């Protein structure tokens, strides 16, 4: 019939195109994941911290984002910016740049700023680790695009699994042991989940 959509073709194309678009991202996540599992084999540079307190010249009056930018300008901080209020009503401003993490705490009384800067040498391991855990839409357009790719990678992991099962099911006569591998593959994470769930 003209114009009929073949389900198998859609599944096959989805499997192919999603894998093409995300190949490098997926390879990066799987490769860096294997590195992180074996983190004891790598030298992890020590984090060196420094701390200082400065007096507040102008208290926060308005949006925290504006204040966060003001702090960044005044203290010459760069990198990804984030802020939150902690349980003790202090404002915490974070600035993350690969290799350097700066936390600025504005006390509830708005009288002083505590600045904690943590530096870590950039190595192969720290690069891989930071790539693996980088997430979140905020912090500028590169982070937003990265976050979109990140979400697409998550979706692709699920899509590969589901479309892979569908593709195998169609050719199951050719791969008769597929059932065994599928049952084991689904059972492994479930088994470990239930072990944790019922562990004392």
């Amino acid at each position, binding site marked *: 019939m003209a114009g009929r959509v073949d389900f198998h073709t859609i599944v096959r194309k989805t499997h192919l195109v999603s894998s093409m678009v995300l190949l490098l991202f997926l390879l990066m996540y799987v490769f860096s994941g294997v590195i992180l599992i074996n983190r004891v084999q790598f030298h992890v540079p020590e984090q060196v911290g420094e701390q200082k307190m400065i007096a507040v010249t102008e208290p926060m009056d308005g949006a925290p984002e504006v204040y966060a930018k003001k702090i960044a300008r005044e203290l010459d901080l760069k990198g990804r910016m984030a802020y939150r209020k902690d349980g003790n009503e202090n404002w915490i401003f974070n600035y993350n740049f690969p290799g350097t993490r700066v936390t600025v705490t504005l006390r509830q009384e708005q009288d002083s700023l505590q600045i904690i800067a943590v530096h870590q040498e950039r190595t192969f391991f720290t690069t891989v680790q930071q790539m693996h855990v980088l997430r979140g839409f905020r912090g500028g357009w*590169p982070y937003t695009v*990265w976050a979109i790719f990140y979400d697409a990678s998550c979706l692709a992991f699920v899509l590969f*699994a589901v479309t892979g099962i569908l593709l195998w099911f169609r050719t199951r006569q050719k791969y008769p042991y597929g059932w065994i591998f599928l049952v*084991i593959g689904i059972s492994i*994470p479930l088994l470990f989940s239930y072990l944790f769930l019922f*562990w004392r």
Partner: protein
Amino acid sequence: MKWNRLLPKLHVYGGLLCTGFLIMLGFSGYVHQHHPKFIQHEGRKASWEQRIQSPDIEDRLVFKQAIRDSLGLFGHTPWWKDYKDSTGISHFMISRPGKEYWVTEPLSGDLFLVDEHRTGILNVLNQLHPLGAGMQGHGKGPGFIILWKWVSLALGIIAIMVLCITVYYWYTWSVKKKHWWYYILGAALIPITLYIMIWLVG
């Protein structure tokens, strides 16, 4: 000829073996970025008081880990789940797959209050992902954590193998026209450019 028969089998059987692992990674990756509320399932609760020696440690993280070990628990102590209430009493959380504990420190004395609640299976599935790296700094957990680490490593290597076979199939079956190479090159450049951008500019 042998490879031609072996590769499809490795691709299909290896892929099927990774199915649950891949779904778990996709799900926990989504949770990592979006923090959905539906995994914060509040299960069965229990509370008890336990008398332990309060350690004399300045560093807050080391102090909480010492309390955790003395209580006979395991798990990590997230820094963002730690506060002082209006009466000056400190509370902090110990989190592990399957359970979360709120520990209330006494103002004086050595009687600690522990509130435990069970989390649902989705929460555990989410925590299996980082647990693949083991429980460094998370205390003495059960032996199957180490087993999970090795299983994760094996499944990760199988997933890489399946991906490499996929690349080989593209090369031999699907990528026949020149414009497909431009498409792949463009797709490959996006993550590389992004990372260089983030790495250098921040």
